[in-house]
């Protein structure tokens, strides 16, 4: 369902051109649980941004569900992100001073979905992500790190996306909570979601079924368990 052909991403800073990706090609099928690992500066975040339709490559092609994403405009990219991809960030990125429920429903804003359905779906996703139902009206800044990440996972599920992209989801969590969060991702994968995880920790990558190692903008290894 995901196919990358020779992705290159270059940043121009003044006169200096730096290539974060130097030609990356791979395929990810539906239902996979892939970890992309690599040291900082290896280009894994840039790759994740392109996969998440947050950014477009300088050259190369990116097909998502058979359609090419690399040449879409801003609004079309927004629609792809809304409908096909769920994001989980390292820093959670919840709206401050906002209830859990409202945070989860954020991607449904300005859609045709009715109020009742939004509520029902948000509750379902929160349950799915393992969030305690009694906390749905708590404000986001009253939650612990683990709870915040569960809310973020619930938010990523709200549009029932084919792919969940997680960028260092455990980076701000302690080991115990990290493992709980990773178990949640394994459960989601078992239920059929395709999961792409970006991390620099090998231990976290071990939860995935396939590990792609990136170094200096190129794929160094691609192993399946």
């Amino acid at each position, binding site marked *: 369902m995901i196919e990358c052909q020779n992705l290159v991403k270059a940043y121009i800073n003044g006169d200096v051109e730096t290539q974060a990706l130097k030609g990356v090609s791979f395929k990810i099928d539906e239902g996979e649980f892939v970890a992309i690992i690599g040291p900082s500066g290896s280009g894994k975040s840039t790759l994740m941004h392109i996969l998440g339709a*947050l950014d477009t490559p300088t050259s190369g092609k990116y097909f998502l569900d058979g359609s090419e994403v690399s040449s879409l405009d801003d609004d079309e990219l*927004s629609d792809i*992100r809304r409908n096909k991809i769920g994001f989980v960030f390292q820093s959670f990125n919840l709206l401050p001073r906002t209830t859990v429920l409202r945070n989860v429903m954020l991607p449904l804003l300005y859609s045709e979905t009715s109020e009742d359905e939004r509520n029902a779906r948000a509750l379902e996703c929160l349950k799915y992500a393992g969030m305690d139902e009694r906390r749905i009206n708590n404000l986001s800044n009253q939650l612990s790190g683990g709870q915040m990440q569960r809310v973020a996972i619930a938010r990523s599920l709200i549009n029932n996306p084919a792919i969940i992209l997680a960028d260092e989801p455990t980076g701000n969590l302690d080991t115990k909570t990290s493992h709980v969060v990773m178990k949640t991702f394994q459960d989601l994968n078992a239920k059929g979601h395709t999961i792409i995880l970006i991390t620099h920790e090998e231990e976290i990558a071990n939860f995935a079924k396939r590990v792609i190692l990136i170094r200096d903008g190129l794929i160094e290894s691609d192993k399946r368990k």
Partner: protein
Amino acid sequence: MLKDLLKETLWSLTGNKIRSSLTMLGIVIGIASVIAMVAIGQGAQNSIASSIESIGSNLIIIMPGAASGSGISQGRGSAETLTMEDVSAISTQVPDIKAVAPEVSRSYQLTAGGNNTKTQVVGTLPTYTEVRNIEVDLGSFFSEQQVQSSAKVAVLGPTARDDLFGADANPVGQAVRVNGISFNVVGVTASKGGSGFNNPDDYVYIPITTDQHYLSGNNYVSDISAAATSADTISAAQQEVTDLLLSRHKITDPTQADFSILNQADIISTASSVTGTFTILLASIAGISLLVGGIGIMNMMLTTVTERTREIGLRKAVGIRKIYINLQFLAEAVVLTFLGGFIGIILGWLASMLASKFLSLNTSVSISSVLLAFGVSAGIGIIFGFYPARRAAALSPIEALRYE
């Protein structure tokens, strides 16, 4: 979709009440101060204009020139060059003048019973009521017969009456002593609402002949007031009076005239240039408050948007289209500026009401000041609330999310 937009806007504004109310405060103060200042300025202008109207209509005032001896001028109005003969010549020979009233005026100590006061005693003719728009509240003004017979009768202004006989007393038929001479009070004039120096309410009127016989002791008059037949004939009447007096006083060079003439139009234009300056002053103060308020609004809006760039990034990352983010920020800016503007207009209006009440100014809130103040504040609020948000929404979600 519209419902979502309204809900998001409301949520965002109520979610950070301090931020919202500070932004609104700038707008409120900017608008309220402009409205109040302009209203007070216009009130001052109106009150000066109406007190000029109250001295009479189509009025021409003839004053004697400066008396000078050995090259020392005693100042305008000090000479004794106008006489009763001049007065009757003006009233009979100038067709554009409908009434003439000479005045001999000086201030005296007045006593009545146990009270006394120092006030202006004006010796004049019954035509004075017509020339100066005087109305009689109690009794009557003195008559032509009483002038002919130099009767010792007096008409009091309401303030003089209050000082001598007590507030709202009816002194008609009682005696008042001026310079040791007893006068019989025949009437009280209606209040004209003046204040300060030369308050017409504090005058005491007596027949001019009586004044000349018993008080001033000569035939000269302090000044002559004349009413032109209409507003259009004021200048013509002024010219005719000037020509008449020049020929009566045997002066060929008009620059050497031993009298000067003021007409009401001149007084009004002088006064309105004074109040015009005053209004410009107030408008400048208001303009500066508007500028300061505007900078406040701009700062608040810019800080808010910068603070919220991450939020904008998140909204974009989860797939909300740019247009909805723009619309939301626009709606927030519009709600803030309109709400603030509305409160500001109410406050400015209240402030000018208070000024009317406590400064005895008849203030009026002008629509143009409301529109100007509101337009400028709302413009600044909306531009600086919307434009940076638009820029942030155009960023890639990654950049916006990383924004510190």
